[in-house]
């Protein structure tokens, strides 16, 4: 099969970022092709933990996160399903005085950014969240945060983009992409050629090779956060749980299953897939049984892991290429992309239409790694274990 598609925008990577960008671009009237080497949303976007969380993000991410925050409750009208989004609140617990001090410092730092954080002391915690085991010093509650089902949300964004008129080509890996005078030329595995004015590189853990092809090497590494899920039990967990300092995060779905993460898996021989380690999974299970007495006699029915791209400074790359006009990057969400991805999609569409976004994204510029003053922007706190995976 050989055919050539002419599009305004070609998007490489059908995860949540690429799919939401495709949808936003279609709504603006651009012609779009969305390409994925497998199924859309089958990698980190679809298999991440499912935290919809602003709390804990570095201050430079909050504006973007707030933009996404406004989209989540409207999912039904945007993509046709609510994605099991629940505004349960996100409760970040502190197990030591030092961790509590760190939560307090964070709350002070983001006080003006509209997260509405509430610090909860030990006694109040016992009263309001009696299902958490007793040895917790305190916590920080972000009432507006929650959780959702990544499997459904990611696929639904891709489907909504298709219904809005995007050409969604699954099992279509991009084998070659280059700048040509009239735009970009992309070649794909199945033999489809694409001519496009713009290219968006939203290829997640696979985005570094595309960036490098345009002379922009990035410090992206792969991480494999792993999760366990329990059999359904009576609903007790009224908030999405994180822990300052990491080690465990947990949420319970309406059906009763608890999803718990906090360890890393490892790649399979097929590098596109990863799996949890047995010891890591048992560690997560034991931590969950210790923290949530209601789970002590329940069973784990399944483990899984996903492949995610992590940047050296744990902030994503979002914005125009510095080497190639009309090339836009959006990847490296470092285990914290699920919540902000729908906002990123809108930002990317604005970049195509206006050449700029109304949401500040300067902190995510790709050339921050090559500039002299490289390093993470002030105020970012790396929290590898607490973050969920997604792009």
């Amino acid at each position: 099969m050989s055919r050539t598609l002419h599009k305004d925008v070609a998007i490489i990577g059908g995860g949540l970022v690429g799919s939401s960008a495709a949808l936003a671009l279609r709504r603006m009237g651009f012609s779009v092709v969305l390409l994925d080497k497998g199924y859309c949303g089958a990698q980190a976007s679809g298999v991440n933990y499912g935290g919809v969380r602003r709390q804990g993000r570095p201050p430079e991410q909050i504006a973007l996160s707030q933009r996404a925050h406004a989209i989540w409750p409207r999912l039904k009208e945007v993509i046709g399903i609510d994605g099991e989004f629940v505004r349960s609140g996100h409760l970040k617990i502190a197990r030591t005085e030092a961790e509590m001090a760190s939560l307090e410092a964070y709350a002070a730092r983001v006080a003006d950014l509209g997260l509405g954080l509430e610090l909860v002391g030990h006694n109040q915690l016992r009263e309001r969240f009696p299902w958490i085991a007793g040895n917790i010093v305190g916590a920080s509650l972000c009432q507006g945060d929650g959780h959702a089902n990544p499997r459904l949300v990611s696929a639904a964004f891709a489907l909504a983009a298709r219904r809005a008129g995007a050409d969604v080509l699954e099992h279509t890996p991009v084998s070659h992409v280059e700048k040509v005078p009239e735009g970009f030329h992309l070649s794909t595995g199945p033999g489809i050629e694409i001519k496009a004015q713009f290219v968006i590189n939203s290829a997640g853990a696979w985005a570094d090779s595309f960036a490098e092809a345009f002379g922009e090497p990035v410090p992206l590494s792969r991480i494999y956060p792993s999760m366990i899920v329990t059999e359904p039990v009576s609903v007790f967990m009224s908030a999405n749980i994180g822990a300052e300092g990491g080690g465990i995060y947990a949420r319970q779905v309406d059906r009763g299953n608890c999803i718990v993460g906090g360890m890393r898996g490892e790649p399979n021989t097929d590098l596109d897939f990863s799996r949890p380690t047995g010891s890591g999974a048992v560690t997560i299970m034991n931590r969950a049984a210790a923290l949530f007495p209601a789970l002590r006699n329940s069973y784990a029915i399944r483990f899984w892991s996903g492949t995610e791209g992590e940047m050296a400074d744990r902030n994503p790359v979002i914005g125009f290429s510095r080497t190639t006009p009309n090339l836009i990057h959006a990847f490296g969400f470092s285990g914290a992309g699920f919540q902000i991805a729908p906002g990123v999609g809108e930002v990317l569409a604005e970049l195509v239409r206006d050449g700029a976004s109304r949401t500040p994204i300067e902190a995510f510029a790709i050339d921050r790694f090559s500039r002299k003053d490289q390093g993470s922007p002030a105020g970012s706190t790396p929290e590898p274990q607490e973050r969920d995976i997604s792009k």
Partner: protein
Amino acid sequence: MSNAVRPLIVGAGPAGIRAAQALVEAGLKPIVVDEAASGGGQIYRQRLAPDKRTPRDLYGSEASKATALHETFARIRDKIEYFPQTLVWNVRGTSADVAIDGRTRRLDFSHLILATGATDRIVPFHGWTIPGVFTLGGAQIALKSQGCAIGEQVVFLGSGPLLYLVAWQYVKAGARVAAVLDTAPFSAKLNLLRGLPSQPGVVLRGMRYVAELMARGIPVHFGVEPDRIEGEARVEGIVWRERGKERRLACDAVGYGFALRSETQLADLAGCRFVFDERDRAWRPERDMAGRTSVSGVYIAGDGAGIAGADAAELAGERASLALLEDAGYAVNRERVAVLERGLAGIQRFRDILEIAFPFPDKWAASVADDVLLCRCEEISVGQARAAMREQEVRELNRLKALTRVGMGRCQGRICACAAAEILADVHGQPLEAAGRLRAQPPIKPIPLGIAADGEAA
């Protein structure tokens, strides 16, 4: 040399026991891990507690084989490292994570023989989750292991040799069998006559079961299309169509199944390549005649390697061990290898005949109603699955699982994946193999959250 060779055998049925025996005879001390409390597997399962039943009562015509196998296992008992009531829940590289008595520990091995057997293949229809409905294998376990019947008025339904064997065993044990409902037409059974020259014992035994059931006045119906099982808290009756007419029979229990499906999760976790087996209508680990998989040092034998029955399992278990020994540098008896391979080839030819005589109900997928429960763990209906297949163009099992939760629950698709694949094939008019297979995830069966870690897990 033997110090470095530390084989792990998973399963202590006919294949696992014969594999262990061959390794012991070569001077090795294999590890044998089995979920059951005692050896024998499903087919030669032993009683939980001693009772008055003789091997003849328990295993009928297969009593001598059962006894021989049990005796062999008892004889090698102190020459193996045996872990009964132990679940292998993960395999990674050269180690296995096992759950034993509320603890998990890692067992390292040099070679792995998977003799994981099979479970009933079932397809859902109305009422299949009502209390009192069992698989044929489940009905047989109740009888063999605990000496009890699944009901007072039992109907057996389905297709496959087990249908008649279990019905006959129930009758022999004194239980009341209300009817045997065979989904295949009687004419299909005539094909068995072609198996007479090669496997006369098996064919005549099967004929005897049917003849004895009929002689006792137990109705045997052919060409049955099951419609629904009736009842709320308990099975009250079964309704089916036969030559266009609806028929109903009161009963308080139903045992049903449509042949067997291989247990392949551990082979998947071990990294074995799979091939589609037309006869089994399923993906199974790729293997050579000796049971070598695509992964060096990993062997597979018995029904877990494709359905071939207990006699083949005994041969295949021994054959796999001889392959292992050969690969590890031991001399093996070539004549014995030839005998085993000839035996296996003969049984394989007979399996083709059996499949024609006991066909899968291939009209089921097109006719099953939308409101029938497909995935009972996650409570997903056939209609919900069909909607995802049509509206979201789902063509493959893992995608179906991601979008609908079919196969995502406690059983990890061991119960519902066969049926889901059949529906995928029907909805899209695609070959069954295009549905693929669910990628196995540990733990292959649920394990307790509070399980204590004894050693480094794999």
